């Protein structure tokens, strides 16, 4: 899946399931959209379903540094690359 295809899926999830209004790729998820730790865990579960595999504990811990939608895309891209190596 390309970064753009994944971006569209993530944006759809954030709008439909997390009720984001006009999400921007560089918006701060917490400050601009009230996204919290509970949401982060739920979103990771949804990303796992899209990707078709479960994250390792180490991979999940790396998600704690995510602040923006672009960070999510970078994070997923990095995991996909590391797994194809």
């Amino acid at each position, binding site marked *: 899946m390309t970064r753009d295809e994944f971006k569209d899926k993530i944006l759809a999830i954030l709008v439909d399931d*997390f*009720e984001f209004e006009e999400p921007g790729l560089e918006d701060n998820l917490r400050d601009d959209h*009230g996204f*919290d730790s*509970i*949401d982060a*865990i*739920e979103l990771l*579960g949804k990303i*796992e379903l899209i990707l078709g595999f*479960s994250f390792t504990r180490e991979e999940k811990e790396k998600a704690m540094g995510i602040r923006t939608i672009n960070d999510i895309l970078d994070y997923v891209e990095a995991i996909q690359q590391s797994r194809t190596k």
Partner: protein
Amino acid sequence: MKRRVVITACSAITPIGYDKNDIIESLKKGKSGVGVLRDDGLLSKHIHSRVFGTVDYPINYDFKRQYRKTMGPVAYYACQVAKDVLERSGLSEEFITSGRLGVAFGSTHGSPTVQREIYKTFFSDLDSKFSSIGAVDYLRSMVHTTAVNISRMFGITGRIIASSTACTTSSQSIGYGYESIKYGMQDAMICGGADEYDTTTVAVFDNLLACSVNYNTTPECTPRPFDANRDGLVVGEGGGAVLLEEYESAKKRGAEILGEVLGFACNNNGGDLILPNLDGITATLRLALADAEMNPADVDFVSAHATATKMGDVIESQAIAAVYGKGPLVTGLKSYMGHTMGTCGVIETILSLYMMEQGFIAPTLNLDNVDKRCDMLRHTPGLTETETKIAAIQNFAFGGVNTCLIIKNGRDAVQ
């Protein structure tokens, strides 16, 4: 230090209405909120009792997803009535978030609806299902879900008391909230309880032969507290909240005083966890009067727990007779809506406040022929116009827990 504690706002979602005027009309016209048990796709088809005190009208919730995500149905009721009391109180956001306002709120067992889904996952024996067990499910189902969803939604930072003692849950909430203010730990408390539509509770009572089964085709004719033809309780749903405030600060800010909590008692029977206990509940009623520094003759109205079980009503009648004789009017308000479980104490308190304000006392619905073992009381004889100065609200729960609240009419509380 002992401080006076007043009630300055209230709201209740009940089987006989949500709006105050609807509730008053139901009480005045003798309209029942008991309906037919709904199909839940699981237990309902096995239950012999086909009646339930149902909230069957739409409620326009307006909660953002940020809050909804940790709320099961029980928290919707709780947060809605808490929102109402905060809006009606006129308290500033600065005060609400100051730490001087706390929450005492509970339910019988959190959200059974959410728990049911969790258990399906627990026992599915699939890795994919296991990983879907999330923190959100726990937050929505846990036993203190009502109290902390309220505190989160409104940014309340004071103490949290999440009582969960079945039928005495919300009367404990009011009692412990009252004590928190009386002894200076908090200046105000949101107190109450909620319970959602739940057939597991009905099943428990059904199997104990404690549920009403003879009025399945005429739900409005049951429960029948104190009546010779009563055949058990009817489970119901709902939510209720009162705002308690320290009297001087409430007066200073010009708050409307709906009532004053004069006394509270809670004790345990110290033995059997199910059977009603005359000594235990008689002691509760006396302890509450002592806390209020009142004599039995001061009490004009007793809101009886009166679930319409065969033995419960008899034992309660004996306790009321032992403490009050034939003095106060006695009504079993569950006759209008069934037993709303963890909510019943706060709903019965609010209904008592409404009746005190409006100058009437409603009779026990369906009390056509008083059981001879319960006829030593002064049962409210039809809709009675009367000035009630002091009311006692009593509730008893599985586990042998008993409570009694002594409440003063708001008009008399203002001095």
